[in-house]
């Protein structure tokens, strides 16, 4: 291998390592602008395709800038059959604008995330959610209130 080839290989390796580390390593968390950390009571309704009431807990465990992550644990009750099911999974979202909260709930029982978009007023977020897989949709409304300390 010639000298120029060696230096080219080194540059290529360096760029590769930097690129890989940029991809894999998270940027250091920034100060949170939201102060959403903590537990929130989640209540909601699925209106489509079947009516279902949703109750549970939203836990925000990590914040950085306008972004946050956490988990959502729900119990869904079919309004007609009263059959219950457990929905749990991770949550990842951000604040858009001044008062809009936008997050995805990746629930274990579902193939596509439920996108929640709502407005935050004091310690209450109200809004709508929707998920869509190949054109088949599920949607509803939600309300989350911070648990009293």
């Amino acid at each position, binding site marked *: 291998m010639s000298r120029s080839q060696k230096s080219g290989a080194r540059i290529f390796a360096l760029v590769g390592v930097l690129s890989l580390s940029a991809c894999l390593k998270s940027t250091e*968390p920034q100060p949170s602008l939201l102060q959403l950390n903590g537990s929130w009571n989640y209540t909601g309704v699925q209106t*489509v395709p079947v009516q279902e009431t949703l109750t549970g807990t939203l836990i925000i*465990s990590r914040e950085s800038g306008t972004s946050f992550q956490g*988990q959502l644990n729900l119990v869904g009750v079919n309004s007609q059959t009263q059959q219950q099911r457990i929905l*749990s999974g991770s949550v990842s979202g*951000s604040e858009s604008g001044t008062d809009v909260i936008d997050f995805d709930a990746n629930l274990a029982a579902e193939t596509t995330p439920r996108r929640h978009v709502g407005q935050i007023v004091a310690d209450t977020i109200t809004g709508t959610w929707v998920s869509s897989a190949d*054109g088949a949709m599920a949607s509803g409304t939600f309300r989350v209130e911070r648990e009293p300390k």
Partner: protein
Amino acid sequence: MRTGPESNEELRVTHAPGGSDAFARATNEILANVSERLSSRANVSASAWRTTDATSVFSGLQSNGFSLRPQYAIRSGTTIAIEARSYTFDATSRATASNSGGGFGSRDDQLGISFSTYLRQYYFNSSAFLGNTTRSVSLGTSSTVTDRSPRNYWTTNAGWSGVGGIIEVQARIDQTRDRGGFVNQQNMFGIRAEQLVLPGLGGIRGEGDLQRVSSFGGENATIMRAGIAIPLMSGFAFKIDAERNSIFRSVSGRVPWILGARFEHALTVPMLRTPGTSGYVYEDLNGNQRRDPNEPGMPGAIVRRGGETAVADASGKYRVGGDAKQPISIDEASLPDGWSASGAGRGDLSVSLSTAAEVELVVAPRSGISPIQVDLSKAHVVARDSVGAEWAAIMTGPTTATFQALPVGSYKLEFDLSELSEPLVPRGPIPLLIVTGKDSKSITITLDPRPIRMWNGSPGRSGAQKNDSLPVKKTPVTTPKKNDSPSGDETPVATPNQNHS
């Protein structure tokens, strides 16, 4: 929809006024799927769709998408594919007492590569996709905010699948960078078993999942699920499941085991269909008028019963309505050249390839005497098939009797020579006329003159020729209907000299 061995095309347009509130997929939906085989190793599939909907929560829900996937078979059982896909979604929510309504949307664009292979009962699939997600939100007093971030993932599964169950190893890395600078990377590694026969436990099957999800919100999660299915009498099974998901916590903060038990019984529910008769239109290769295992269907054949019409599918299967008491006939115009229907029926209907056949008649010279001249134009030659039906030939030459269209099969030849000027006898044994395909068949039959017996002076004896020693069977040739069509009309006979009794 158009389905063929090399291509499939489907276009579906649906309008359901109630939309998803009335349990439809959407109010309006248009979907197109295309799959084309480009060569023995390459094919391409594409799809595109658009839906619009409205619900009590959303005044507008729209989604559009497409995917394009060329695929190449490296060798048998091993394929590699490239896939491009794009998906757009927009929602407009209605205003409520606590929410002023607004809209949000998203767009996903991805390009990926997939590899898939199997060897006997082992399989391996892997795919990697690079792309980005664009999101927009416009709620309340906020102006529209748009955010674009990369989204990449790699997923792999490998396993064994057989009558003893399925064992599979799974891995997935999902990576998204959000506006705050996080790289939301979720790694999942898992192993699962399904319908796994547990040795020495009398047919009890086990199943389970073990998944480890890491780098999610700075926390790790382990999901465990295990269960067994115990077969009982009459197809019933008793199932016990236990699941523990470290994401799901009880009020006390504990991660509980969730137990479940249930009885299950699988039922096969017949499809509700309109009254009708189904069967196959098949190629009767051996002429026995029964569908044998090696006899293929005749796709595209049109069958009729009364005013009802149906077309046989790619396997030759048809289903036709109408009065079940009436027979079903095949429209011979729908058959390829040379093929004809064997008759009307109610289940499987046979078609067979018709072939011209000739019987050459040769008059043997009388031994020791000069050759004889006989006009054979009044000879009648009949072929009798395996079920006893008669097929008549016409004299197309001085010594040639021709069957213009005989279905495939074996025929016993019979001769009526009673109208000839000279008494002749077919020389035995008379060979079978075997019709096997499109090529014309020819067979030669020697006709022997009756020996002349000379008068020897004995009283009571005549010196003239006698016919009483001729074993010729006279077969009446009629022209009945070939098919017993339901309308009572006579189905056209392919050749006017065919008789099918």
